[in-house]
C-alpha cells in the first residue's frame, strides 16, 4: 500500500520534466513496471488521479507497460523468461540465476501538451 506515495513522487518527477520544457499540462505518463518491483499496477492506477490533483499532471493518463521477468543463467549461459516465484533456469535447472529484467519501476516518458493551441493551417500557413 505504498502506491500513493510512489504516485506522488511520480507526479513530482513528471512535473519537473514539464517545467524544464516549459509546459503547464501533462497529457500522459508512461511507466515501466516489473512484477518484482513490489508495485501493484491496479493500485497505482487508483492512486494516480489522487496524487495528480492540483498539479500539472491533473487529468493525465497513466500508461503502465508491463515487463516480463528475465533471468540469465551463469551455468548454461542462456537467458529466459521466468515467474516471480520461480527464478531458476528452465533449461538446465540451475537455481542461482541473475535477474536481468523484471524489477524495474521506471518513468519512461512524459507526454506534454502544448500550451498554446496548435496553429491552424489557415491562420499560420507554412512558408
Amino acid at each position, binding site marked *: 500500500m505504498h502506491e500513493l506515495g510512489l504516485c506522488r513522487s511520480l507526479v513530482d518527477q513528471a512535473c519537473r520534466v514539464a517545467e524544464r520544457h516549459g509546459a503547464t499540462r501533462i497529457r*500522459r505518463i508512461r511507466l515501466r513496471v516489473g512484477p518484482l518491483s513490489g508495485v501493484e499496477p491496479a493500485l497505482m492506477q487508483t492512486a494516480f488521479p489522487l496524487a495528480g490533483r492540483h498539479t500539472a499532471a491533473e487529468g493525465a*493518463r497513466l500508461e503502465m507497460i508491463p515487463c516480463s521477468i528475465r533471468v540469465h543463467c551463469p551455468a548454461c549461459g542462456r537467458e529466459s523468461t521466468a515467474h516471480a516465484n520461480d527464478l531458476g533456469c528452465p533449461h538446465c535447472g540451475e537455481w542461482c540465476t*541473475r535477474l536481468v529484467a523484471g524489477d524495474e519501476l*521506471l518513468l519512461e516518458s512524459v*507526454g506534454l*501538451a502544448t500550451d498554446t493551441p496548435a496553429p491552424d493551417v489557415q491562420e499560420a500557413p507554412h512558408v
Partner: protein
Amino acid sequence: MCDTCGCALPDHRHAPERDARSIEVLEGLKTHNDRLAHHNRTHFDAAGVLVVNLMSSPGAGKTRLLEATIEALGGRHRLAVIEGDLETENDARRIRAKGIPAVQITTGSACHLDAAMVHEALPALPLEALDLLFIENVGNLVCPASFDLGQHANVTLLSTPEGDDKPLKYPVMFRASDLVLVTKSDLLEVLDDFAVDAVAAHVRRLACPAPVLEVSARAGRLDGWLHWLEARLEERRRPRFHPVPSTGDGHLLSRPRGLA
C-alpha cells in the same frame, strides 16, 4: 464523471488530446529514496557501524529477537536500535529497558520505513560510538522490501506458525534477503506441517543465496544468528582500500612523470 481520467469530479473535462511532445525520461521512481539511502550509508560507513535491517510480518518476533541478541552481544559490542511502528513507543521502551539506545519512528499509517525517516532518526543516535545498529522495520512482508534505507544487510524473519511457503507468496521480500531466520523454532516439535528445509528450498527458487537459519529467542537458540552477526562485524573491521584524496601538491607516487 470525467470520461478521460475516470475521476469523480462533476465538472472535470479534458481538452481534446493534443499530445504534442513526448519527453523520454528513463528515471527510476525511487530515485529520491535511493539517493537518501546512499547518503545514510555514507554516514554509517564513515562512523564504521554495521547496519542490519530486520523485516518480517507483524508478530514474527523481531523485538524479542533483538532483546535476546542484546543480552548475548551487549557486553561485547556497542549496539543501538531504530524501531519502526505505525503507533506506540512500546518496542523502543523494551529495547531501552535492556540499556541500549533506541529511537522510535512512528509512521502513522505508512506501512514501511523509508530512507528519509531513518535519516531524521540518526541525530538521536551516537553513530560514532556504535558497532552495530539494528533497524526494526514495520511489520509487513510487502512494502519494506521496496525501500532501501542505507542498511548493509537485510534479514527477514519467518516464524514457524506462519507456514513454510511464505517465500513463494512474498517473493519480493524474500529475494531481497541476505539472511532468513526461521524464528520460534521451539514450536517445530508441535507444528508437523513446517519444514525448515522447505523454507530453504523456496528461498533457492527465488535465486536467492541467503542462508536459512533456525532460531528461538525463548529457548536461547541463537548460535547461528550470532555467528552470522560476528562474521559481518569482523568483515567490516578488516581494513579496506581507501583511495587517498589528491592533495594537489604533486607529491603522489602514483602520478606519472610529466603530469605534476
